[in-house]
């Protein structure tokens, strides 16, 4: 009402000329204060700012909670993947032994030959030099094997990088070659001619493929003798990897259950391999599923979205 009165007074002052002013009356004009003039507006603005600030801090809090949860999930995944890798490392022992014993065997034989040469009255220095060079090369080879194992078993944090899925497939299949041949299973792979560029964590994706191959090798073991890996483009948006075996297949009502934790059909199985695989694939925004093949055996497929160019 102060505002109204102020205006009214000004109006009166203008409309009523001093000459027509009633006797005994005088004009008093006072400028209304800012508070008097804009009290409601000010209150509204303050209220809006307060509400907004409340909203913002709420959102910030939510965001922090979400990133915390994500970090936690990622470290759980890393942990889980690490456990899974350690479990597979045991099964990989024959590959490791073979890959290490190859250079070690050459080194031992070369060293013994060198000793023999040194015992002769006129040692052939050129041959000795050759032997030493070979020993050095084999030594490097052995340490590369160990480094590769260490990087495989290391607890690496989840790290997203630009990758070619074909490289990952190739590495795993070559790594497992020995393992499979000692189990009398043949491993074949057939890669797409074009690179499959995705974003993801190389070690964990390797583990997924490794788990799938292991799973297929086990089921192929007493029956068929081949596990086949394929990679291909699925339209322009995702890459598909399939691992198929010639084993007895999985009853179709169980196909949905196999990715559940602790589901296993093997005597020594822990039932975590496939569930870890699914967790990792989901973390890559991908899908993983199993199908029965018409010609027998099971095929596991996983699809991972391609990286945007």
């Amino acid at each position, binding site marked *: 009402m102060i505002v109204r009165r102020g205006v009214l007074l000004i109006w009166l002052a203008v409309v009523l000329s001093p000459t027509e002013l009633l006797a005994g009356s005088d004009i008093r004009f006072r400028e209304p204060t800012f508070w008097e003039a804009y009290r409601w507006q000010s209150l509204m603005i303050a209220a809006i700012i307060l509400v907004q600030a409340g909203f913002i801090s709420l959102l910030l809090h939510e965001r922090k909670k979400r990133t915390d949860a994500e970090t936690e999930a990622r470290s759980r995944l890393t942990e889980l993947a690490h456990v899974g890798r350690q479990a597979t490392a045991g099964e990989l022992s*024959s590959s490791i032994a073979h890959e290490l014993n190859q*250079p070690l*065997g050459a080194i*031992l034989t070369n060293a013994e030959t060198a000793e023999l*040469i040194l015992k002769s009255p006129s040692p052939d220095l050129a041959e000795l030099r050759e*032997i030493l060079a*070979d020993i050095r090369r084999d030594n490097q*080879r052995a340490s590369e094997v160990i480094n590769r194992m260490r990087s495989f078993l290391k607890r690496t944090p989840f790290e997203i990088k630009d990758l070619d899925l074909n490289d990952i497939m190739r590495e795993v299949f070559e790594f497992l070659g020995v393992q499979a041949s000692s189990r009398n299973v043949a491993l074949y792979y057939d890669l797409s001619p074009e690179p499959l560029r995705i974003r993801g964590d190389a070690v964990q994706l390797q583990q997924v493929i490794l788990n799938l191959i292991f799973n297929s090798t086990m089921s192929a073991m007493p029956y068929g003798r081949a596990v086949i890996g394929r990679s291909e483009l699925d339209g322009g948006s995702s890459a598909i990897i399939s691992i198929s075996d010639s084993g007895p297949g999985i009853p179709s009502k169980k196909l949905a259950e196999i990715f559940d934790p602790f589901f296993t059909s093997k005597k020594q199985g822990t039932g975590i391999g496939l569930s870890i695989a699914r967790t990792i694939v989901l973390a890559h925004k991908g899908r993983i599923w199993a199908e029965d093949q018409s010609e027998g055996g099971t095929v596991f497929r996983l699809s991972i979205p391609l990286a945007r160019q």
Partner: protein
Amino acid sequence: MRGTVHVVDDDASFRSAIERRLKKAGYAVATYPSAQQLLDRLPDEAEPGCILLDVRIPDLSGPELQDRLSKLGSTLPIVFLSGYADVRTTVQTIKAGAEDFLTKPVSSEQLLHAIEQAMAHHEASRDERRKLDALRELLATLTPRERQVFDRVVQGKINKQIAQQLGATERTIKAHRHRVMEKMKVQSLAELVSIAERLGVLTGISARA
């Protein structure tokens, strides 16, 4: 020359190390990076030799090569040398007639011992084969009638029975028998029976009888 060692291993570095060592020991060495290459140029069986075979080689594996070779009638002894020996493969290869199964890294002493034994076995089996071949040649010189007499003599039949069976006089049979002993270069019936046994003649007869 102490014979040829045929080394089949896909690892170039290992092949050259082994080749060097075996040559120092006085063996001739032939190396093959894959099983197929050995099958492509099969070693001469007449020469003393043995095969040093890796279990895990690309394409055709060591045990598979062993199987192929035995189907081809090879008598070359095989010494397996593997980077990793699982029980199953070891048993399988030994059962299939492998001479020895060594694991890498192998000491030269162990390796040379195994190779020496393999060579000796090969030598002995070649020797045995030569003797059998010679006996087979002798047996082939018998006339059909003499062979009939031979078959019956080693079964322990007496002249009278043989004469009856073949419809001849006892004297003729006696003469045949004499010639068989001469041709087979033996002095006694016991020797004749032993030859028949070694050549598998006896089992052949009893199967027919």
